[in-house]
């Protein structure tokens, strides 16, 4: 069997084609090879044979050798071909390729700070949010268990991006990826917004795209904190969400971040019935989640002063620290199925979400 290596940083910084290697026509042997060379995320892979990669590439009009981005921290070149190879490895359907190309372009935007995200000790994973018609067409789950297991597209798209970050970006745990513990989201973290259950504008429209556009948004996400509340009162619900957001050892309070809330459809309905727009929700959460600086340890407070004095002026123990610079920096999507749950997704801090349109030309 002929298989194509997945990317090898420092060797593939330019647009050269991936070299083919000969391997036994045996799944176990291929996986042994990938395991030995650290070309996988720890799970078995689909062998990226030339035929499979070619089949994947038929779903894009872009040139095989075109470089979409240089991926930090190793700055390997993410060519269309290398993105396709890693998509095959992850088990993606060929139709997922344009979305994946847009996601790679998004993570390379300067404001996303991929260098920091890839090399940090923080557990930050990259959360992919899909909006628009493509979510339904590719069956990307935005309802029951949308960030859990079970949906092929969610699982393999998130996994493919992680493989690109490792194999092209060179972020191997313990080497250039310095995560102290990491997080399960580093295997895969992808969902659609549940636009049908969203009483407000969907995320991509809020961020300036037409309702009929398909987009991918990437978020530097520390993890997930579930909030199960049977509260039926909008303002009270916002209070308990804000109380959950307050946590002293937080990159958000230290640096001023971009926290995200994945609001369950039932909670969204309660907030809408209370007459709250999405902007109202953000404003209220921003006010209610202000935290007295004295809640932080002395050392962390010193770090906060270093990072936010220019923004907030003198910071004393009684200063109320906002979780983000501006209320509108709080990200909100509506996702999930029926149930009294919403999810707080704390962010990396020095990173801002990026949205890219998934175009036919991808």
């Amino acid at each position: 069997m002929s298989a194509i290596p997945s990317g090898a940083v420092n060797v593939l910084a330019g647009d050269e084609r991936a070299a083919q290697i000969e391997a036994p026509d045996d799944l176990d042997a291929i996986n042994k090879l990938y395991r030995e060379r650290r070309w996988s995320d720890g799970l078995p892979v689909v062998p990226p044979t030339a035929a499979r990669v070619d089949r994947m590439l038929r779903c894009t009009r872009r040139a095989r050798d075109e470089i979409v981005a240089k991926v930090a921290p190793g700055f390997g070149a993410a060519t269309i071909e290398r993105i396709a190879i890693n998509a095959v490895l992850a088990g993606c359907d060929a139709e997922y390729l344009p979305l994946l190309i847009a996601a790679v372009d998004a993570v390379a935007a300067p404001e996303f700070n991929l260098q920091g995200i890839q090399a940090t000790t923080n557990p930050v994973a990259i959360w992919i949010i899909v909006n628009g018609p493509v979510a339904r067409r590719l069956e990307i789950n935005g309802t029951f268990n949308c960030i859990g297991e079970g949906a092929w597209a969610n699982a393999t798209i998130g996994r493919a991006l992680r493989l690109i970050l490792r194999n092209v970006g060179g972020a191997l745990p313990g080497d250039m990826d310095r995560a102290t513990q990491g997080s399960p989201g580093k295997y895969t973290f992808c969902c659609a917004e549940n636009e049908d259950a969203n009483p407000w504008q969907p995320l991509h429209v809020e961020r300036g795209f037409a309702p009929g556009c398909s987009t991918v948004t990437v978020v530097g996400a520390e993890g997930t904190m579930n909030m199960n509340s049977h509260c039926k009162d909008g303002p009270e619900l916002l209070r308990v969400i804000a109380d959950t957001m307050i946590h002293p050892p937080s990159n958000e309070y230290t640096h001023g971040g971009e926290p995200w809330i994945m609001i369950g459809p039932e909670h969204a309905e309660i907030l809408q019935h209370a007459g709250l727009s999405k902007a109202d929700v953000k404003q209220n959460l921003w006010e209610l989640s202000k935290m007295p600086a004295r809640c932080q340890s002395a050392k962390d407070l010193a770090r906060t002063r270093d990072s936010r004095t220019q923004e907030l002026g003198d910071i004393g123990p009684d200063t109320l620290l906002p979780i983000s610079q501006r209320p509108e920096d709080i990200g909100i999507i509506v996702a999930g199925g029926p149930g009294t749950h919403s999810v707080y997704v704390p962010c990396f801090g020095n990173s801002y979400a990026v949205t890219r349109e998934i175009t036919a030309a991808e």
Partner: protein
Amino acid sequence: MAKRGITALTICSTAFITLGRAQASALGRPNLPIAVIAHPFGLRSRDEVRQMAETCVDDVANLVSKGGPA
């Protein structure tokens, strides 16, 4: 900075040396001087950190002179 002709070196702690070397190489400066100091700083007093600085200051100066402009 080195590519712009400005003398540069990196000081990094032992826990980050793999990242430092790999990234210098990826950025086209495999010979970038890197001064390595003990990790972590967390429980060290200001005086202890000062002592660490004094023990490595000559090495840092030597690396700067070796590194020179690109």
